[in-house]
């Protein structure tokens, strides 16, 4: 009955502590496994931590990757968000139209369903032909990966709006384009956000594939280069940076989601 009560700080800290338990256990297991097997192919957590430090601040190896994290990070962020925002800008309106307009649904939906199962990696050669070697091909691949979940979830959201809400809107004098803005969009927004969140996750996943297209900078490019150079510590460092970046930007999206969908407690993440 009451509007949301703010959660006390101690409870928040306790929740944060709980989320850290499993990652710390995994790192411990990793350390033990490397020491126990004596493998030289996979570095221990300590070596990766040193690599990460050098990647961020330099002063240890002083090679081509020292203190270059920001360059690579921003290059990747631009591509992730270039592809993601393009996917959102096309996917949400397209999903709304497919959901609401029968003719567009009949024209577009079968083709969409045909294209959807094709793995994004399979588009890699074609995208390099379309866009050449460089960031545009990476953005295109991220776009492809993100657009399908956005379109599908938006369509689903529009299709599942309670018909009575349209009747209520019509009787209260709301119709036409106003109906789209005032009823369809907000009613479908939980599903739209779900699609955006999925698409956003795919965007970060696909950045490594996108940056296989021969770009010089970017976290994916670093991982690909490190693989060539057999530097597993750098590969893992790059993985950790992508994981953290994806996690943080997902939390930001969740915060926006919870703010915009504060009317619907069951859609809070």
């Amino acid at each position: 009955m009451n509007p949301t009560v703010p959660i006390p700080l101690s409870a928040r800290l306790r929740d944060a502590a709980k989320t850290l338990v499993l990652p710390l256990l995994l790192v411990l297991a990793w350390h033990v496994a490397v020491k126990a097997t004596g493998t030289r192919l996979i570095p221990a957590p300590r070596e990766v931590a040193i690599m990460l430090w050098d990647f961020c601040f330099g002063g240890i190896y002083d090679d081509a990757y020292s203190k270059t994290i920001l360059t690579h990070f921003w290059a990747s962020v631009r591509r992730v968000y270039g592809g993601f925002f393009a996917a959102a800008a096309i996917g949400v309106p397209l999903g709304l139209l497919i959901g609401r307009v029968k003719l567009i649904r009949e024209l577009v939906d079968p083709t969409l369903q045909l294209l959807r199962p094709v793995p994004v990696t399979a588009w890699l050669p074609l995208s390099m032909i379309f866009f050449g070697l460089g960031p545009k091909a990476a953005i295109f691949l991220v776009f492809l990966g993100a657009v399908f979940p956005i379109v599908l979830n938006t369509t689903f959201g529009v299709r599942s709006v309670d018909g009575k809400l349209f009747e209520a809107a019509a009787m209260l004098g709301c119709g036409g384009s106003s109906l789209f803005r005032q009823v369809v969009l907000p009613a479908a927004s939980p599903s739209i956000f779900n699609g955006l969140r999925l698409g956003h996750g795919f965007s970060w996943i696909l950045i490594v594939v996108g940056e296989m297209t021969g770009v010089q900078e970017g976290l994916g490019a670093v991982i690909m280069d490190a693989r060539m150079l057999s530097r597993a510590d750098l590969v893992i460092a790059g993985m950790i940076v992508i994981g953290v970046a994806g996690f943080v930007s997902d939390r930001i999206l969740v915060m926006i989601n919870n703010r915009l969908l504060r009317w619907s407690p069951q859609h809070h993440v």
Partner: protein
Amino acid sequence: MSDPGSKSPSALGADPGAVAGTQPIPGTSVASHPGGDPGSDLSVTLAAGLAAVTQADLGPDFTMPTQSGIRARPVTVIDESIALPPRHLPILAIAHVGKRFSVGGNTVEALRGATLSINKGEFVCLIGASGCGKSTLLRIIAGFETASSGTCAMYGQAITGPGPERGMVFQDYALFPWLTVRENIGFGPKQRGLLGQGLRDVAARYMEMVGLTKFADYYPAQLSGGMKQRVAIARVLANDCEVLLMDEPFGALDALTREKLQQDLLDIWEKTNVTVIFVTHSVEEAVFLSSRVVVMTAGPGRIEHDTAISLPRPRDVSAPDFNAVRREITQRLTSHVSQGAPA
């Protein structure tokens, strides 16, 4: 509580402009029509309302025309210069309305030959077993469905689609979950271009009418069923609806909440003079609320009987005369069922 003068002219039934322009001598127009049926003779109801408003509004500075020597102008109840719906017509005229649906290749006749004339300010209950077409009839009046045959008109104008003058209150509320109580109630006025303070004032007035002022910034998900239904009622009233269409509105509520809402609905009805068409399958609810009960039967849905309920208000559900009416309506409902019609 809301000031009746602030309600829209059309919903009140008395136009303040007409009052100012005509200055009837208080009481005369009522006295000249003694014994008229207020349901069918609208001018009497109107004149009574006008006289009351005029007396109240003129205040202590008013001197009777006869005392000051000025001849009173002829009493005209309706100022012809103001465009008003034709008062001599019933607010709703439903003639021979039928509705057929096709369901998977089969045609189902939901309603046949429904004829009903409803006057302004009536409280009409449609009652009947499921499948009697009462909801279908309500949805045709709302404009959500089109009749397969017959005509349905409001003030003589054919109903072609949903409109703000006919407000539906759904059983499952159909509130906009992303809007607060205030925004839900203001939704209709906003569509008509009302903004800022004007919009806030309208919303505040109707929130007060249904007793939800304290919950202005709550979302529907944070409200109880009864409160949601209050918002739904306020939402259509704020949109200047003249006919309140209610489709089993209290069916999903617990008994105590239902009783409270029934009483509040009667208060609102008396205060605003809105016409109510109320679908229910509870005989007690129908007899308690309405000025007229329309009994419908199924297979195909049609109007079986139409009774005026003249019990004095407030009504007591345990009184013997209430029980007598309830028994009579129940007999009309069940006599048809016992004849072997599909339940």
